[in-house]
């Protein structure tokens, strides 16, 4: 597993729009889960796509892979296919972002880069709160695919690397802080909390923190 960057989380100011009734998920999530749009049925032919992005790892419970076909003249996404290993909301979220990126003739790469988890969650009619952090990683996979396209066509100045993200806005802890803590030897949630105070007064961020810790442990210590 060659991760180059940590898993993305939704912006921390997302609100819980859990409108579910008897089922865990909204009707839109259900629809996209049972009838996923645009997933890649057959392995791609050479030249079928010109940008590929992957994100997550099955060990963390989610992995998304995105294939895009970009029109070099307009820089619009004319085809978007994907595969996802993950729970119901992860599958539905990837399906939804494929719709968002290709509807109305397709978004330009610049527009597509601005798609954020909150937009995907809104379009899905909300997700249960605990699913925010783990299941909407598809925007990150898409941005990796966009970077991959620019790399292939040699527009290196257009490759954008991800900046820091605020994980816990109460304690002001970013993913970089967590990365630093793990590199300095913190191996468990408790040890990372000792160093960063992440999630001390905000337990809702803990699943995201656990995932980051595992990610960085894998990255730096292969464990």
């Amino acid at each position, binding site marked *: 597993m060659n991760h180059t960057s940590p898993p993305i989380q939704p912006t921390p100011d997302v609100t819980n729009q859990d409108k579910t009734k008897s089922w*865990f998920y909204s009707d839109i999530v259900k629809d996209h*889960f*049972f009838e*996923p749009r645009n*997933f890649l*049925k057959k392995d791609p032919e050479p030249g079928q796509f010109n940008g590929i992005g*992957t994100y997550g*790892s*099955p*060990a*963390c*419970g*989610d*992995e*998304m*892979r995105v294939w895009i076909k970009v029109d070099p003249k307009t820089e619009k996404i004319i085809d978007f296919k994907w*595969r*996802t*290993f*993950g*729970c*119901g909301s*992860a*599958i539905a979220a990837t399906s939804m972002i494929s719709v968002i990126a290709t509807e109305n003739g397709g978004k330009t790469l610049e527009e597509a880069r601005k798609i954020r988890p909150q937009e995907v969650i809104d379009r899905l009619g909300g997700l249960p709160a*605990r*699913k925010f952090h*783990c*299941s909407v990683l598809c925007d990150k996979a898409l941005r990796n695919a966009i970077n991959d396209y620019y790399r292939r066509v040699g527009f290196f100045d257009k490759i954008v690397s991800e900046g820091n993200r605020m994980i816990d806005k109460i304690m002001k802890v970013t993913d970089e802080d967590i990365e630093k803590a793990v590199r300095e030897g913190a191996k468990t949630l408790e040890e990372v909390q000792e160093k960063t105070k992440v999630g001390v007064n905000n337990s809702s961020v*803990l*699943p995201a923190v*656990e*995932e980051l810790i595992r990610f960085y442990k894998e990255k730096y210590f292969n464990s």
Partner: protein
Amino acid sequence: MNHIYLDHAAATPLNPQVFEAMRYFFDGKEFYGNPSSFHTPGKEAKDVIEKSRKNIAEILNCRPDEIIFTSGGTESDNLAILGVARALKDKGNHLITSTIEHHAVLEPMIFLEKKEGYKLTRISVTEDGIIDPEEVLKAIEPDTIFVSIMMANNEIGTIQPIAEIGNLIQKYRLENHSEFPLFHTDACQASGFLDLDISKLHVDLLTFNGSKIYGPKGIGVLYIKRGIKLQPLLFGGGQEKGIRAGTEFVAGIVGLAKALELVQKEKVKENERLIILRDYFITEILKRIPKTRLNGDKTKRLPNNVHISFLDIEGEALLLYLDAEGIYVSTGSACTSTSLEPSHVILALGLPREVAHGSLRFSLGKGTTKEDIDTVLEVLPGVVKKLRSISPVRVEEKYWNRG
């Protein structure tokens, strides 16, 4: 749509005979007195409790005063662990358990370790999910006061050698002229299938509850061998010999006693039926669906437990696809809990996280028929195939089914 419920390890439907036995204590017509009251209705309620206690004691082959009623399995486990450890604080501070215990055992143990200065040893299991009794013995130190090992695992259904472990602990106590360590077992998953005779199990404390044996939810038992002191968790009116204060759940107690009686009476025949069904189900899944793996020992497992890893897909997605077909199963997968961690039990078998994430538990019950299993076997391959076609993951071959 025909519903197929295969989650009996989580909860069983109430047996109508049990409901019938409980009815009089629910309908408010006659038996509503507080068992602690000194008048006739109170005495009647008290008598009913004592009769139930006696019936349970007969099945456990113990004395009635060794049976304490609680609110369920979690409370019984907590009472056993916190109660004994705290009462024996001046005798020693080392506790032993296993890596595959239920959270109702692990969490109080970890609490004692983190907050109250106890030392905790967690015994590993074999790759088939079985605890080696010798490993337990080896872990015992002079200051070990308490050992808790489950009778059967709630996720993978493996049956642990409780009698052997109990025997070794008794021998250790004799040879070392010590009263300790005490030995507790959580028998919540086992009580519907296995013999609960205390004298054969060599345990000092034993937990079971109503919800796994076609009895009511919200009622449990802690068997405590006479003479063992423990510190209560609840203080109040002195019910249950002061060990568990609070007005008794009379209807629940009656229902639990009835449920245990019925399930123990029918177990030999029912186990035989379920084992045939279970083994058929396992064989057919492994045969019909590639890249599947049975977790837990093939034979040392509960008659109703089928636990399978479906590689390359995630358990919750599979659960929801089956749910849409009216098939109700369970996953120990992270997404159903508040944490993202996959099941600690599957990880304890030495399996990687990507395999743990793709695991499902099917737990059969009294109502499960061969037709049900055949229906599931028809639906399952297509659902797995569809989810695999969506998945980018291809887990390595070495984690496939063991030969």
